[in-house]
């Protein structure tokens, strides 16, 4: 027995010795190869002139003949030479490579930002089409000027609060001037609250990279603002709209956006508390859409329903919009703009895994498609007809829901997320109208609020860990994974984000709009509302050549009778 044991021991020792020797041989072989290469290959000096002839650039005579095939244009001749006396150096070449990468990313981010800006047109005509013709000028003017009010507020202070501490933004050259985040130490951790650089884009933030970030973030912020105008349409006083929009662009939106995107505490939940990669919201289901949708809910509660929307027993009346053509055209414009919204949120098309832009774009497409399927199926099965406006809302719901997860999920998950969103928007519209008895003329609360929150949660469920955009997300190494791919902590981070949206963002929006309601008054008079807001609020009809017929009063009640009921109530409330 002992002999056998000795024999076994000897065999193991010999085996280990053999393995050790083999491992040493392997490591010395692999380690010596680069050393040999390094020692034998001469390292060129950065300022040494390069032999340009090796690149065989076309001669001036060749170029003068034209280049119909595109094979001679864009050669070594086009690299900027810093010192003509020396000629092209290695330094020139590598600097050009670096600048090219940043230039590609600048161009990508700016162009996608322009696409997002064009979404304002989509929102404007969707909302106007879903409203009655007598309010068309007013609704268009809200959507038109929310751009100006929002931009102004964001330039003055919103951008600084949001992105003032976001540096370094590697894909855009660093944006290093944005390097100051106001933090507090609480419960043994550091909590980023808001940025402090970039007010008026002045001082050191007069920087090319900062300008690109500003433009891109500004159009996102404006999208959130324009969501609110839909929920309060047909009864919102224009002056109150202006004040409310400025506040949202300056304070509400930037604060949450800082916490999620600007280096604030939500983004640090992974680093500080080990919750996945912290709150992850790729393109803004939460930051943009849920903020807009929850503010819309706060305002719709404060401002109350339109006259005639609900009967005395609380049952709702349909108040159909005046132009389904522009509604669906607007939905298409928005779907087009979403190709800027989501793929553009890589802030890059070169490096750091940014080639996932194709995947992000396809995910966006798929979720929009299945969203419209979901809504169409729901309406068809429940009401017997494939309702056009709800199908359009289904498309938007799918797009809203995929906005946060678009950079982290695969196409199958995108389709599932969109399909659920399509059903969810229909159920939510019914719940808001029939149970809450809140009047939302365009379905903004359901499309953007409900599905924005669903999008945030879906990151915590479906993120598949296939992408990390340069090695880490929110300072945590590795890729974002949801519950279904093994990281329940990510779902907790997402739920804390949802809680912050529902508790903090809604609370702040409600408080701010309540103050505005008390000071300025949010709602137009009942007489103006019944007449239509185009003349009383804007001074001109949208369709002066058309004869508008009164519609949408409670069943069996004329417009005059509705006014007789509504006007004394309104006056009583104003004087109370």
């Amino acid at each position, binding site marked *: 027995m002992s002999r056998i044991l000795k024999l076994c021991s000897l065999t193991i020792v010999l085996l280990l010795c053999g393995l050790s020797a083999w491992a040493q041989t392997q490591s010395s072989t692999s380690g010596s190869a680069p050393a040999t290469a390094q020692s034998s290959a001469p390292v060129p000096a950065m300022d040494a002139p390069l032999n340009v002839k090796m690149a065989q650039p076309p001669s001036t005579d060749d170029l003068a003949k034209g280049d119909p095939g595109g094979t001679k244009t864009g050669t070594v001749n086009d690299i900027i030479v810093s010192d003509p006396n020396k000629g092209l150096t290695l330094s020139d070449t590598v600097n050009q490579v670096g600048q090219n990468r940043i230039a590609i990313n600048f161009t990508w981010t700016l162009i996608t930002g322009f696409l997002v800006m064009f979404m304002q047109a989509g929102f404007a005509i969707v909302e106007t089409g879903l409203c009655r013709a007598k309010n068309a000028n007013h609704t268009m003017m809200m959507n038109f000027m929310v751009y100006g009010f929002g931009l102004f507020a964001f330039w003055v202070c919103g951008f600084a609060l949001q992105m003032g501490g976001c540096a370094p933004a590697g894909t855009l050259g660093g944006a290093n001037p944005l390097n100051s985040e106001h933090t507090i130490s609480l419960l043994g951790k550091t909590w980023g609250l808001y940025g402090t650089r970039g007010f008026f884009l002045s001082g050191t933030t007069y920087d090319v990279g900062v300008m690109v970030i500003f433009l891109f973030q500004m159009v996102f912020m404006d999208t959130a603002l324009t969501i609110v105008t839909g929920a309060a349409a047909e009864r919102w006083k224009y002056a109150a709209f202006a004040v409310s929009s400025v506040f949202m662009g300056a304070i509400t939106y930037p604060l949450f956006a800082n916490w999620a995107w600007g280096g604030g505490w939500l983004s640090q*939940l992974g680093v500080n508390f080990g919750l996945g990669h912290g709150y992850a919201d790729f393109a803004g289901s939460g930051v943009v859409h849920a903020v807009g949708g929850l503010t819309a809910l706060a305002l719709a509660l404060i401002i109350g329903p339109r006259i005639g929307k609900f009967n005395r027993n609380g049952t709702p009346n349909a108040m159909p919009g005046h132009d389904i053509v522009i509604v669906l055209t607007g939905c298409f414009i928005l779907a087009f703009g979403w190709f800027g919204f989501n793929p553009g949120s890589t802030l890059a098309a070169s490096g750091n895994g940014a080639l996932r832009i194709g995947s992000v774009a396809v995910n966006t497409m798929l979720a929009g498609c299945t969203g419209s399927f979901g809504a169409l199926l729901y309406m068809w099965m429940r009401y017997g007809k494939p309702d056009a406006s709800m199908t359009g809302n289904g498309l938007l719901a799918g797009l809203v829901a995929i906005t946060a997860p678009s950079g982290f999920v695969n196409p199958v998950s995108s389709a599932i997320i969109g399909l659920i969103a399509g059903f969810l928007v229909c159920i939510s519209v019914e719940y808001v109208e029939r149970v809450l008895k809140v009047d939302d003329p365009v379905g903004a609360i359901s499309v953007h609020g409900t599905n924005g929150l669903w999008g945030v949660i879906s990151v915590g469920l479906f993120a598949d860990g296939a992408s990390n955009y340069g090695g880490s997300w929110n300072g945590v190494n590795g890729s974002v994974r949801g519950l279904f791919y093994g990281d329940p902590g990510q779902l*907790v981070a997402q739920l804390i984000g*949802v809680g912050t949206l529902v508790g903090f963002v809604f609370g702040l929006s409600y408080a701010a709009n309540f103050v505005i309601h008390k000071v300025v008054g949010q709602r137009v008079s009942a007489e103006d509302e019944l007449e239509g807001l185009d003349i009383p609020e804007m001074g001109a009809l949208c369709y002066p050549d058309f004869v508008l017929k009164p519609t949408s009063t409670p069943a069996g009640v004329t417009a005059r009778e509705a006014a007789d009921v509504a006007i004394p109530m309104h006056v009583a409330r104003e004087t109370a």
Partner: protein
Amino acid sequence: MKVLGIAMAVLGWLIPVATLVITQSTTARMVICLLGLALSLVGILVVLNKGHLKEAIWKA
């Protein structure tokens, strides 16, 4: 009633945030998050909304 509704909404947000430092358990954190979210939603959709429905324009 409106103040109570808003207070519930804000409390439903603060509780999960505060408990981040109390427990390390992911399950416990998730349960507390869901409870907080439920509190916020009840505050907004039930309590606050009820406050507004009391004076709804269509009830006259």
